[in-house]
């Protein structure tokens, strides 16, 4: 009996406070309720409620039906919504109105403008590509020369090195390095070959969105930049992932390599190395040994252009 009493005592001690309802000014009611949760903690819940009474007019039949007792599967259920049967949607569902066209015009104006600009940009890019192809077809180096060709001048006069090679052999295609050889000497090609690339660094893993200006900004702290070549996709204009940066001095290029190799740029890690080494290994060893035993690797850029040139020629045949 004593144990029971002791338990009762404890119950009394921890009895939860009763529900309290206080009416505040402006018609609000404050309801304080206590309950015990799953972890056996007492929880105090305070609600501020505003009660509103509104009357509705119902027909006799409706009034009768409001008094209906629950039946069938929900017999003996208390008044109110059944848990699991009637729930309010969590999402707010609004009607997706179809807006009439004249209302929409105002809003889509900006988009139209942007689209038009994009179209123009695409058109210009296509135009540029076409012009470049024409130039290659005619065997001339730039637009001005092409104009001259179309005006009647001979190709050879404009571009002695290449022109002689191509013209002399008729239809047969001769790669630029062979043209130079056959032409015998210091044509345009060999002049380009003389370009010194000892101060050039090759940058690879360049993010697609990079521009020349970005590279300029990145590389200029190490010295005065002579030239930047960024390989770009012909159609999209995006970077293809590598670039060449030429400095005036070897020491400047060395500094750039030291500082920027492994440097994080955008979301990629740049790789910066000597242009000469890579190019010699990748592109020209075979060509050099096959065709000119005493070949000294020329500037990387020229040789990088070779595969591009092949591509473009093939394009020309299919297009025109």
């Amino acid at each position, binding site marked *: 009996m004593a144990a029971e009493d002791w338990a009762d005592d404890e119950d009394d001690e921890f009895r939860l406070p009763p529900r309290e309802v206080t009416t505040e000014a*402006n018609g*609000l009611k404050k309801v304080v309720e206590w309950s015990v949760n799953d972890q056996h903690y007492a929880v105090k819940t*305070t*609600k*501020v*409620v505003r009660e509103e009474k509104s009357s509705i007019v*119902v*027909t006799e*039949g*409706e009034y009768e*039906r*409001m008094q*209906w007792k*629950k*039946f*069938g*599967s*929900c*017999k003996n259920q208390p*008044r*109110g*919504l*059944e848990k*699991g*049967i*009637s*729930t*309010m*949607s*969590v*999402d*707010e*569902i*609004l*009607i*997706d*109105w*179809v807006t009439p066209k004249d209302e929409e015009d*105002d*809003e*889509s104006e*900006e*988009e139209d403008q942007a689209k038009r600009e994009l179209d123009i940009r695409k058109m210009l890019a296509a135009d540029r590509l076409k012009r470049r192809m024409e130039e290659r077809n005619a065997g001339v180096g730039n637009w001005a020369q092409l104009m001259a060709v179309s005006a009647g001048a001979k190709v050879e006069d404009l571009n002695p090195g290449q022109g002689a090679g191509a013209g002399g052999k008729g239809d047969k295609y001769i790669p630029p390095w062979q043209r130079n050889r056959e032409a015998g000497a210091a044509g345009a090609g060999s002049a380009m070959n003389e370009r010194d690339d000892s101060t050039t660094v090759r940058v690879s893993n360049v993010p697609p969105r990079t521009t020349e200006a970005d590279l300029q900004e990145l590389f200029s702290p190490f010295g005065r930049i002579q030239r930047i070549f960024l390989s770009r996709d012909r159609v999209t204009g995006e970077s293809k992932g590598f670039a060449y940066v030429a400095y005036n001095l070897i020491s400047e290029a060395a500094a750039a390599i030291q500082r920027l190799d492994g440097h994080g740029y955008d979301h990629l890690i740049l790789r910066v190395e000597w242009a000469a080494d890579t190019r010699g290994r990748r592109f020209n060893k075979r060509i050099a040994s096959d065709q000119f035993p005493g070949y000294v690797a020329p500037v990387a850029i020229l040789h990088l252009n070779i595969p591009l040139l092949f591509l473009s020629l093939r394009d020309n045949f299919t297009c025109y």
Partner: protein
Amino acid sequence: MTTLARLGRPSGDELGRAQATGAAGKGWVLWFGELRRLPRELKTKAKRGKHTNTHTYTQRVVRTIRANAVALSGIVYLFIAMRPMILKGHERPLTMVKFNREGDLLFTAAKDKVCNVFFSSTGERIGTYVGHNGSIWGMDINWDSTRLLTGSADATAKLWDAASGTCLQTWEYQAPIRAVAFGPDEQVMSVSQVKYKQEEVKVQVSRISEPNAVAGGASPMEITGFKENVVRILWYPTGEFFLAASEDGSVSKYDAETGSLIHRAQLHTEKIHDMQWGNMYAHFITASTDMTAKLVDVRSMEVLKVYKKETPVYSASISPLLPHVLLGGGQAADQVTTTSAARGGFEAILYHVAYQTELGRVRGHFGPINTLSFSPNGKQFASGAEEGYVRLHTFDPEYFNRAYE
């Protein structure tokens, strides 16, 4: 600060006070019971007051939040504009939802053998009608909502006391029952029997007070000559004739006295799924798998308007209040998994009754809508879908205040 979520819409007075205290403007909002600041991008969008298509949704959210956040003496309320009640009274696809004449009750029937009845004002379930042994395909409620008539695939039709859920009478047939309808005087009912084994499609018109022929009672009036199952029967309120919609795409008008065919109109090229009366019984609307719903004049049986949808239409309802038509449907149930929900077309689509143009869509279901209905006051609609849920929508004030012309 105490928070409280409240249902309903703020009155103009409350909104005015909210603007005076400035809580709504400062971007504080009660979001699912938690007081939060509006994200910055939402706020700037709201300030600009102009939105691009990609941000329509965000913009709409902002608009609702701004309209709904109301501060009253330190309490922030969230008013919830249009949150439908989801009624989970069934476990199988819905076959029919129907309001009673006054619109206070919503009856639902499904393939899980039971009918449910809900209060349409709250979504509270009042009762179930248990007793059938097969999918319930059709039901009808009488004029004063005292009796419920159901037809089931167990080849019986039952009459129920609506208030207590007790079965008053059972008629047995030789084939599954598809459509049932009270005649106008409630002494007569018509029942359609589907094609089953040797049985051909039949519509029987019999007196409610008598058992039918199979049970040894009087022989009812039988109408045959249908190519396919009759899915819906509508009685004209004068009792002069009734309409029977068949799965071969035709709607037939039969003389109720003699049972003779008055007119048969081939309205659709494919199955008809639903046929409902328009306001004033001058028109009816049919919904078909051929992706159209058609508004038809009762007297001449001529198609007046056609509403086109991208997916099959399983149900169509005419608003009794505004010049609107609501279409429900979606990809066929057996093809639902082959496409994404977005392309399934499970929304209920609102059309202008005369211009036949789409006005808006109501999302929510994740299966095709099998059946939907406007409430008789036009302020609510219920839709039941293949997934087994009924959604009871109450239109927000925008729906009534909008300029539709």
